[in-house]
């Protein structure tokens, strides 16, 4: 439980970079095939609990010759869109003043969900909100769907409709280990070993703050699917130390190792930290402008008939998606 070594987090949700690549590729491929076969990629939950692609209207199907057929998203486009909505998760959580733990849990749910599905199958905007909602429940900070929906001017029924899908896709593995707590541990450890000498608890505090900001960034990379929370925390701490130049991080690490793992060298760990570092450096924060065309493409994949119908039939949801655009 509180033991990461025996957790579902470690057993089921830590991958190799190769694993991730395969999963993203598979999901993308599956959605592409559905698009070719059915002319749309949106998934529905049937009454018996099975999932199926929404059947497009006959006319849409008939007209779906090679020219008018929507184009599937590329793997990179899916990635960019996920990155966009992951940033949104932090945005929304900040707006609600949720604790960082909830934010991290929601982000990890979101990431795990899209290892199972393509964004073309389930719109990330909906999934993002449902992940936040589920994270609140799991972290005992219950916020009603209505309240959540209201706060961001979204239909709360949509959040509820997707809840079971999200829980199921996560395999009900809902306990998530975020790096913030590990970071807290390292920082108090640092404080104990350095504070006496430095006499600067204020500086340690600001070091902690910048490390937290680094964790915030890490949470938007693939790193949480690749490394355990303790290593994510150390990577964040190392970056913060580089800026603050207060503490010799290498020495601290050596120190800690000689205390706790005398048999091991730090080289292996340093390799992991370097990879995490690289992932942070590569982190993109796309703006709504950056993803606008992808989102348009996505809309036609999900629901090719929506273009001509949206004005009449989907007035309401159209409206709310405009609001969403504004919010974004």
């Amino acid at each position, binding site marked *: 439980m*509180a033991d990461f070594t025996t957790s579902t987090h470690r057993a089921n949700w830590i991958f190799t970079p190769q694993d991730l690549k395969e999963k993203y590729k598979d999901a993308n491929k*599956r959605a592409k095939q559905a698009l070719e076969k059915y002319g749309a990629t949106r998934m529905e939950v049937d009454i*018996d*609990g*099975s999932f199926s692609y929404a059947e497009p209207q006959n006319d849409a199907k008939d007209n779906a010759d090679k020219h008018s057929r929507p184009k599937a998203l590329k793997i990179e486009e899916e990635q960019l869109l996920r990155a966009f909505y992951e940033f949104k998760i932090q945005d929304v959580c900040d707006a609600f003043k949720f604790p960082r733990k909830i934010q991290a849990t929601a982000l990890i749910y979101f990431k795990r969900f899209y290892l199972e599905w393509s964004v073309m199958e389930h719109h990330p905007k909906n999934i993002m909100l449902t992940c936040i*909602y589920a994270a609140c429940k799991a972290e005992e900070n219950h916020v009603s769907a209505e309240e959540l929906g209201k706060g961001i001017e979204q239909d709360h029924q949509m959040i509820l*409709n997707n809840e079971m899908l999200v*829980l199921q896709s996560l395999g009900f593995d809902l306990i998530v280990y975020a790096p913030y707590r590990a970071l807290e541990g390292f920082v108090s450890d640092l404080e104990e070993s350095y504070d006496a000498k430095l006499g600067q608890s204020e500086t340690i505090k600001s070091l902690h703050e910048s490390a937290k900001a680094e964790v915030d960034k890490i949470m938007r990379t693939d790193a949480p699917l690749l490394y*355990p929370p303790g290593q994510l925390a150390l990577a964040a701490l190392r970056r913060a130390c580089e800026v603050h130049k207060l503490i010799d991080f290498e020495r601290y690490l050596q120190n800690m190792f000689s205390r706790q793992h005398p048999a091991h060298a730090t080289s292996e760990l340093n390799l*992991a930290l370097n990879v995490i570092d690289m992932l942070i450096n590569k982190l993109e924060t796309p703006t709504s402008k950056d993803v606008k065309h992808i989102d348009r493409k996505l809309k036609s994949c999900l629901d090719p008939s929506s273009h001509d119908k949206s004005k009449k039939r989907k007035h309401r949801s159209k409206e709310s998606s405009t609001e969403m655009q504004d919010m974004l």
Partner: protein
Amino acid sequence: MGDGRGSNSGSNSNSKPEWLEQYDVIGKIGEGTYGLVFLAKIKSNRAKSIAIKKFKQSKDGDGVSPTAIREIMLLREISHENVVKLANVHINHADMSLYLAFDYAEHDLYEIIRHHRDKVNQPINQYTIKSILWQLLNGLNYLHSNWIVHRDLKPSNILVMGDGEEQGVVKIADFGLARIYQAPLKPLSENGVVVTIWYRAPELLLGAKHYTSAVDMWAVGCIFAELLTLKPLFQGQEVKGTPNPFQLDQLDKIFKVLGHPTQEKWPTLVNLPHWQSDVQHIQGHKYDNAGLYTVVHLSPKNPAYDLLSKMLEYDPRKRITAAQALDHEYFRMEPLPGRNALVSPQPGEKVVNYPTRPVDTSTDIEGTISLQPSQPVSSGNSMSGAMGGPHVMQNRSMPRPMPMVGMQRMQPPGIPAYNLASQAGMGGVNPGGIPMQRGVGPQAHQQQQMRRKDPGMGMTGYPPQQKSRRF
């Protein structure tokens, strides 16, 4: 959870949900505010019985019940011989209800105690008491070392396996109120304290804001005494309808047996919110301190008494822990505790045959499933035009089956040999010396009764057996 995502079963509203096909549902065995519990047999293995717990949808249309979510998420992480095993999770998409399938346990301490008191009219034998207590502590030690507090231990939540390979093995059940230590705090009033008060620790009755593992140990003490005497140790009258945890009558009952707590013995007592009101209240009372040993009929020199009194220590910080209790002299004396609590390895010991659980065969699980005729579940932003009729796609199942049973714990790739994370992650290193009681919400959520209208809701006696037919 590899179910409910079938393929060609179609959306025939008259058929059972697909997952239900694997079971023969025998009948209802329990009921509570959370929902219903059914007994079922697995068709492919008739020897195996399963208890299916159906959660009601959460009220006010707010999706999956948070209690269900909490219970599942905890159970997914734990595995121990003395903790109930979650065999599967089923989803009924029609009404978005959740079904948890557990390995079935034929007995529980509530029934065992009742049987001895009302039917056989004799105490439970020493071997059985000791074995039950040891296994209960063993399971609890596992939970506590995994930073989980159960918070609602009572006889009806302690199950004992019936005939079969695991006969007489104790299983701690009902994790609907369980918490991880580091879960955030919420004020008590938010959810109302409505669980049974008979097993509630004094610090909680006096308004302590933190649940610690010590509250579970207090409950174990109460259960231990009840196994010895066949009577609940502290049967207070509950004041209902108030979020106030301050239950005067329950405190009275405790003080009458254990005497009034003093600041010398329990230094942090003065910090408890309701201590002041208690002081005013007790000025008019005189507690003679009847003495715990007279109530449980044990000599103060008896190791069983020593262990019991250490569980019922007022100061939660001094109260014995599960690990310490397992090490107690009581468990090293004859008769030694065993794995089969119901049958003593000593030849010639009389075996009590406990009755099987009453099953109400008039309540059908399907009647509670309420499949609506072909209503698409997805509404809201879905395109209703595209949803006409039952549309069935071939084998569009979930991308990854996630069976609950026998899930392998693979060594995750990419984790270096030294497991730094597990130590820095939580608990392990704990360089800051973060205290155990940190951040555990004192609130109990809605009432969680497993399978019967339980005692403790202000009743002084046991309720009559629920009307039901024998299976």
